[in-house]
């Protein structure tokens, strides 16, 4: 009797937990279609106008309310975000995978040190890493811009890729690799034909994770972005600081959709293998 009661209470808590997690997100999505330009919380009809207006098209709502944010700046931020995310994903995936291979296929003295070193960027508070990079770049005369953001993101994304690929390598034995070597294949052939196909789901998973974190990073980018190299999250942060506008709902919904697609893709890949 008593057991059933506890169980029901737990289920109720669990459902409320999920509601707490998703209600704010769902609300933003719903509000992005609300045509009320004055009070967001009062529904006055379905519209796509906020989406058109962030793309710079004149809409009925926009003419009335003059809620225009500079579309050029927004598109520039999107462009910067994509450049940064693609570059950091490429660099950190290659370096992270190489490090994982080194730590899981060889035994050497500084191994534990390396493991510790690789976990450090993930636990380091964002603000500490952000200002350390700022002081470093300015101190050595490196111009703040897309390049400095790419470097900054890689310092912690290498670790994320490393962790994901390591998890894949930990559950794998190297008999096939040894067989391939015994049969006379050289290192490169063994890597391309045997190792890579086996670890590929981990590498793709790590790359997706790196891409998504790079696209979404705010704190570190905030400190090391130059004037012309604003990324999307920094741009929205700036908008938000100046006041709440209905267009932010639409931008947020688009970002949400992208994040959800990539995360789901990652999960799908992990479960298939």
């Amino acid at each position: 009797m008593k057991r059933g009661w506890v169980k029901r209470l737990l289920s109720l808590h669990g459902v409320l937990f999920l509601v707490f997690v998703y209600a704010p997100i769902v609300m933003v999505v719903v509000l992005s279609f609300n045509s009320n330009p004055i009070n967001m919380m009062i529904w006055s009809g379905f519209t796509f106008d906020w989406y058109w207006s962030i793309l710079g098209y004149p809409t009925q709502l926009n003419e009335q309310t003059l809620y225009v944010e500079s579309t050029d700046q927004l598109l520039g931020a999107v462009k910067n975000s994509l450049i940064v995310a693609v570059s950091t994903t490429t660099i950190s995936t290659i370096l992270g995978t190489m490090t994982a291979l080194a730590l899981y296929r060889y035994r050497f003295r500084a191994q534990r040190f390396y493991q510790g070193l690789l976990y450090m960027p993930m636990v380091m508070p964002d603000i500490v890493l952000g200002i350390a990079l700022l002081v470093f770049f300015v101190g050595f005369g490196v111009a703040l811009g897309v390049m400095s953001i790419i470097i900054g993101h890689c310092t912690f994304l290498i670790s994320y890729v490393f962790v994901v690929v390591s998890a894949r390598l930990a559950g794998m034995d190297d008999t096939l690799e040894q067989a391939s070597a015994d049969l006379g294949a050289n290192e490169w052939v063994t890597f391309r034909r045997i190792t890579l196909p086996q670890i590929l789901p981990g590498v793709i998973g790590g790359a997706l994770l790196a891409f998504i974190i790079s696209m979404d990073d705010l704190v570190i980018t905030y400190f090391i972005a130059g004037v012309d190299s604003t990324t999307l999250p920094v741009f929205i942060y700036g908008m938000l600081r100046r006041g709440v506008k209905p267009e932010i709902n639409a931008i947020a919904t688009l970002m949400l959709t992208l994040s959800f697609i990539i995360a789901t893709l990652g999960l799908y890949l992990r479960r298939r293998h």
Partner: protein
Amino acid sequence: MARRGDTRRLAFLLGPASLFLGVFFIGPLAVMVVYSFLEPGLYGGVEWNFYHWNYGRILGWADGEWEEFDAVYAQIFLRSARLALTNVAITLIICYPAAIWVSGLSARWRTMVVFLITLPFFVSLVVRLFAWVLILRPSGFLNSSLMGLGLISEPIDIIFTETAVLIGMAYILLPFMFLPLYASIEKLDRSLVEASSDLGASPLQTFFRVTLPLTLPGIAAGSVLVFIPSLGNFIVPDILGGAKVLMIGNLVEQQFLSARNWPFGSALSVMIMAVMFVLIVLYLRSMGRQEARQ
């Protein structure tokens, strides 16, 4: 498994990342520590003199001749620590029952729900906080619904209070508490719990004597993972706390972007890093003891 030797291949695999992290991770942290001991110059520059008053200003040995000691810095530090601890408690209370619930679900549902709980982690921080601005501000969702229901007649002030900051921090850091807790509850040997209740222990006794002690590693890991990012947070207090709830992260940001006292900002940042190191060392040590006992 391990092939001894072959330093050439190892160097090829490890070299690039070592170089990169050495220059762009260790390097900046070292430069920041050096900066924290330099004298602040005019207009945001630095003078290359050894200058420990940056720390004196915070910890209390500045004498007023060189640098003013102001207790406000220590107070902000303590407030940040208090808020971070409160946040650990909140996320723990929310996530523990949730993790027990998830671990009792069927395998298919379990994967699904864990995925659903981790998914928001991949949504941009600024988007998630924006949602809470919409909920908590005076004309926001919460006040509109409460007034619509006739429960209150005037909007209540939630945004720009500590409560708002705590809600926001708990919201963004939930997965960091949930995942380690879930991992340790999942690993829990069910037969021990059953044995305890078969031997006549009440559900509460079983919980406090069996379940809780066995899941301590998860609680410790979750607490560290939530405390560290809470302590140095500046986005949440900035967006949801306004000027009223200043945390150490906001202070650091001000030193860099408006006050332009980089050495002082570096000193504050070094202190955040020191707290992090102490916590990590304590955590690793207690985990080591745990392993030794088993």
